[in-house]
């Protein structure tokens, strides 16, 4: 455990030093991996810990992005616009969607969350005041005292700070008694009910926490690109996050980050050589599901454990 922590710390330092070591394109890829890593971790809380396979997580990612875009463009380029409002909006939406969705489970839960996210997508896609299909361009980065976030290395550390914050917060949540109850729900929901836990309330709380963090990730994505479009709300965004979690290893938090790195790395490198890169990704995914369902991280642990 201690060596794992040391490894993680060394990794963080290495990532933090990237802008001074490599060119600007790899740095931007790393930033995107961090952002999607946050998003994938937030989905992992639902999938890997509370046993809720949500296909509608993109709704909160996109909502956070749109709220941040609107607030940063039209209201004020402050941390309130970049963090507080998107998180609050995603939390509120998570409360409503979660309240209605957790009433069902299994495939119905998947369909319901999918339907909700597609409603968000359709609403944004058809709204002329949200730029319709073209989305909202020209999103400025927030102004923090003394920091110029338009500089790549400053923005890099800013994103890394959010990443560490999300990682620490989620790690605390899953290790808390609350997190243990979630694990129990995943293992055997009926038994938890029989033990007297208000399972629904626990699930709803987890759903809202996941949605909130996804909203923050969406806001970072909008700041990173200076742009947000309906694609962020589309179900394929949920699907990509699901792939990241599965490839990396559900129920591990760090795994989905590796999954995000693998996914974005593959997409960016392979797709320059072939349009059929998704075939390779699909094959890799099938391979993982069949032979290493615990994902990249599980594989690494198995190796380390001998």
């Amino acid at each position, binding site marked *: 455990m201690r060596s794992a922590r040391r490894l993680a710390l060394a990794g963080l330092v290495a990532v933090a030093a990237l802008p001074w070591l490599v060119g600007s394109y790899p740095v931007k890829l790393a930033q995107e991996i961090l952002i999607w890593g946050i998003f994938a971790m937030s989905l992992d809380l639902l999938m890997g810990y509370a046993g809720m396979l949500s296909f509608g997580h993109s709704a909160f990612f996109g909502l956070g992005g749109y709220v941040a875009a609107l607030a940063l463009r039209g209201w004020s380029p402050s941390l309130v616009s970049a963090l507080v409002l998107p998180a609050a909006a995603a939390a509120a939406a998570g409360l409503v969607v979660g309240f209605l969705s957790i009433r069902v489970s299994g495939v119905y839960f998947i369909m319901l969350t999918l339907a909700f996210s597609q409603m968000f997508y359709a609403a944004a896609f*058809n709204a002329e005041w949200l730029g319709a*299909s*073209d989305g909202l361009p*020209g999103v400025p980065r927030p102004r923090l005292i003394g920091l110029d976030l338009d500089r790549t290395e400053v923005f890099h550390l800013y994103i890394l700070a959010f990443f560490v914050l999300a990682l620490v917060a989620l790690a605390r949540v899953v290790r808390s008694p609350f997190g243990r109850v979630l694990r129990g729900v995943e293992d055997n929901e009926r038994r938890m009910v029989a033990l007297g836990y208000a399972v629904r309330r626990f699930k709803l709380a987890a759903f809202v926490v996941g949605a909130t963090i996804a909203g923050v990730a969406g806001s970072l994505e909008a700041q990173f690109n200076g742009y947000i*479009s309906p*694609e*962020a709300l589309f179900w394929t965004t949920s699907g990509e996050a699901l792939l990241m979690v599965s490839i990396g290893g559900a129920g591990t938090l760090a795994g989905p980050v590796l999954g995000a790195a693998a996914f974005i790395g593959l*997409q960016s490198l392979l797709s320059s050589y072939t*349009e059929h890169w998704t075939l390779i990704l699909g094959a890799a995914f099938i391979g993982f599901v069949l032979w290493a369902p615990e994902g990249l991280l599980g594989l690494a642990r198995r190796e380390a454990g001998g």
Partner: protein
Amino acid sequence: MGLTRRRFLRGVATTAAGAVLGGRARRARAAPAPLKIGLLLPYSNVYAVLGESITDGLSLVFERAGWTVAGRRVELIKEDDEVNPQVGLRKAKKLIESDGVDFLVGPVSSGVLAAIRDTVHQARQILIVANAGNDEISRDRCSRYIFRASFSNWQPNAPMGSWVAAHVAKEAYLVAPKYAAGFDMMRAFKETFVAAGGKVVGEDYTPFPVNEDFAPFLTKINQAAPKVVYAFFSGSQAVRFVRQYDEFGLRARSKLCGAGFLTESDVLPAQGQSALGIITGHFYSTLLDNPANKAFVRAFRAKYARTPDGFAVQGYDSAQVIAHGLTATGGDTRDKDRLLEALRGVEFDSPRGRFRFDPRTQNVIQPFIYVREVREVDGELANVVVDRIANVRDPGTGCTLPG
């Protein structure tokens, strides 16, 4: 003061350095760096056909020039934007920062263009837009680094507004898919149609990107019984709309007019007889009778064994813009201001007519918007030019380029 060891070493080092550097300089003169052109186009997903068409048109120009322009070898780097703004943006960054391309060409989707605009502008990267027509890129979001060789959504539609009011009828029903380009196009038509005394009796926006059934909208049109229906659809939606319009028996009562994409050569064969008589406005028709177009159509058919469409012309013209601009600077791409000036001044014979940019917006001035009617020519359906409106330039409201 003979030859000390130190002096000897210094002498050797200087000579060696001179030889190496001199050699490199000579080599540089003999073979200058290749001209890197990044193609940011869809090669998968719904618009893959358009991406291929544009690439084919563009390749034709460079192939004819032996893949060398102004002494520089042309190197194409293709990236698939998957019609997804997020992916397009990531690929644009890759082409700009990692590959260091001299020119970026693309994209097809206006969503991708909206996404990459700021990145392109801030990186001072020259972009030749080969399709995406969002008006804003010629308006408040124009950039001195962005040139558009295709069209703005306003361009084919605004002239049609006044033309339809003058020549067909003053009462129209508008229908288009519910997304940014649909809104842009209908707004442009309405603007001039109403100004010419026309009246819009109804307006509908259909689901996008997927819509199988236009029946609810056609029923409404049937009830409104307008003299003209003005529509914008593209690709498979254009095929379905035109066929269902005919099946509903609306063809006899309401004249169908629209933006050129409604009956482009990529969809005409599938539309068949249902398309007969449809009037559209576009900057191009395969049948245009000018030497540049004849040469283009002949070369395109010989190489790819199919009839070129407007998209191929956009790729063809994007390549010509690059070739002419580069020839004017003698192959130099380093002095960006000089290259930008050269690009602003390019002028050549395009299949669509005499090509030049509007210095105020760096959007192409359409030599003509051709009013075309679908007729049968030699047993094949074709867009026959019945009228034309000259020098159509986007109003460019809000664009502050020094022009």
